[in-house]
């Protein structure tokens, strides 16, 4: 494994509600190597986005973040614990060392400023640079992202660009300060499939050029297969399976991941084989979590008395592959 760029230990994020606090992310630990792509996969409400916002220090009160450590490696080989930084120090990290792009490119850009103004604003806050130099850098970024006529596009407002172009501008803004880590929260979900492929290709290329690590959040296993070095599957606020992309796609030992994979539609899927299999039931309500394994009410491998008794730990099942299942030895895709 490469040297760790980001190490998150025992992250817990809670939000108070009228029925008591809910734990959106529960005791989550993971690491991202430098230059590596970690894909976090999970259904809506599994805690993927909350995790990324917690790393960025963007969970707004009354949400509470607790972590043993969120360590980010420096260029000079040291590391800082982001969870101990002051807000002012954290601002220097945000946008400069860790950048983030979001799902909805239409609403994630400010509609009243031009693309250029928004990119230049980010550059000039982090680097002492003249307006002109920042503008040149912004233009260069747009060019790098394959936006035709970048100089002209700097003066365009978000609503004058297509969804794909907006997401490119968004990526340009995120990468303009050369971060060592990019967090991409479902950046392709709102785009149509061909544009999706272009954006994925682009992120992969830029990652290589910039030597940057990527945390890519998606609910789409197809996208995960395209881009992942390693994958972390989340369910109800916890990591339930972690491993290399190969280990997970070729030899998952987790009933939940198997369910997810079966429910991906494939070309040439036989029409006679009936409707696309789906995982029965719904993601549990975080306020009323089932006892034991949080997936057991929906699990085909459920064993009464075992799975509903205690929460399974993350267990190693070979070469850096972890699963949270008591019966993983008996589970096969």
């Amino acid at each position, binding site marked *: 494994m490469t040297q760790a760029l980001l190490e998150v230990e025992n992250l817990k994020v809670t939000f108070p509600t009228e029925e008591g606090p809910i734990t959106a992310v529960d005791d989550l630990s993971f690491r991202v190597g430098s230059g590596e792509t970690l894909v976090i996969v999970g259904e809506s409400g599994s805690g993927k986005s909350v995790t990324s916002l917690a790393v960025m220090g*963007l969970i707004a009160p009354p949400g509470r973040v607790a972590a043993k450590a969120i360590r980010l490696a420096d260029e000079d080989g040291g590391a800082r614990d982001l969870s101990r930084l002051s*807000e002012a120090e954290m601002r220097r990290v945000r946008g400069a060392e860790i950048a983030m792009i979001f799902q909805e490119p239409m609403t994630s850009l400010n509609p009243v400023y031009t693309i250029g103004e928004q990119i230049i604003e980010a550059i000039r806050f982090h680097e002492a640079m003249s307006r002109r130099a920042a503008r040149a850098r912004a233009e260069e970024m747009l060019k790098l992202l394959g936006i035709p006529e970048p100089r002209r596009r700097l003066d365009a407002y978000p609503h004058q660009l297509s969804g794909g172009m907006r997401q490119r501008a968004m990526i340009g803004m995120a990468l303009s300060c050369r971060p060592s880590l990019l967090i991409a929260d479902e950046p392709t979900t709102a785009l149509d499939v061909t544009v999706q492929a272009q954006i994925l290709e682009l992120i992969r290329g830029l990652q290589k050029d910039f030597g940057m690590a990527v945390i890519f959040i998606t609910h789409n296993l197809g996208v995960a297969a395209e881009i992942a070095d390693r994958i972390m599957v989340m369910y109800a606020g916890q990591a339930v399976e972690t491993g290399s992309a190969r280990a997970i796609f070729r030899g998952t030992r987790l009933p939940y991941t198997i369910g997810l994979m079966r429910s991906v539609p494939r070309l040439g899927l036989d029409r006679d084989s009936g409707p696309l299999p789906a995982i029965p039931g719904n993601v549990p309500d975080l306020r009323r979590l089932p006892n034991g394994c949080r997936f057991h009410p929906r699990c085909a491998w459920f064993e009464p008395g075992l799975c509903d008794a205690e929460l399974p730990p993350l267990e190693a099942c070979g070469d850096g592959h972890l699963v949270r299942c008591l019966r993983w030895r008996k589970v096969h895709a």
Partner: protein
Amino acid sequence: MAIEPRRVAGPFARMRMSASWRSDRSELWRYIGWRLIQLAIVLIGVSVVVFFTMHVLPGDVAMLLLGDRGTAEQLAKLRLQLGLDQPIIVQYLRFVVAAAHGDFGTSLTSNRAAFADVSGAFPVTLQLTLAALTLATFIGVPTGVFASLKPGRIFDNVAMTFTLFGVSMPIFWLGLMLLLLFGATLDWLPIGGLYGVGIEPPRVTGMSLIDAALAGSPSIFWDALRHLILPACTLATVPLAFIARITRAEMMATATQDHVRTARAKGLPRARVILRHVLRNALIPIVTVIGLQLGLLLSGAVLTETIFSLPGLGRLMVDSILSRDYPVVQAGALFIAFVFVLVNLLVDLSYTLLDPRIRRA
């Protein structure tokens, strides 16, 4: 056509962009033209309503003018002179033609041109309105912004309680109380009028502050300013409360939008996020409220002008209606409609500056 997509995208995209840019411009002018036509329609409508209500009211204008002493002969002569013997449609058309030339007839009470009475009273109202609205904006917007930052906390609660009083307080009561406290009991400020007794700079604009400044005497300016403070504070109360409340609500709604999260993810300081990415985007509804208040206040702050004996448009209109001075009422009503529609047009046009997405209705 199977051509490489990227090579097509360049020139095509440019064409589309420049075309939309140009059509944005012409669309804006078409919009302004359309709004001016609307203005004309509104004025015609107002003229119909004003003219006919004044004429269906009981009482004979000629008789009113002559009083009890008029003989039948004199009455008939005056009716002929005023054109009151003509069919009402003819009277209306005459009125419209004359009005289009700025001639609304002669005031029945002051014997001056009716329009001169109206345009003479307007600067007083304009100055009062601008002073009140400036006060309301510069206090209301920051109050709303601060209240929105920590909703439910002490500042927010105090501010929202006060603004609730602000929007529901009877303005005449507040004016009288201020008058009583600062004018009578404490004797800090004058109780009414534009200037102190015996002080009056030469009339240039009709706005006391500007005329006083033009007169070049600091003491006159100070006097005019002191006369403006109480009425401006009184008139500012309701708009201030509205502006503070709408600012708070819009700030809170905007703060949860995705692009604000993006701004924070860029590492921008909180103050910059709040001012440039939240307040800036919340401005449209705030400007709308300010514009609406501007239109309302300009059409005459009747109560405030009455309490503080200011010779403004609102008081002129009330006096004219009570004394059945119909030329002044007609001139005033049309003038108010004109100002109101114009202010709304300006507010709508300001949207195009505030929001690049808005280019048409």
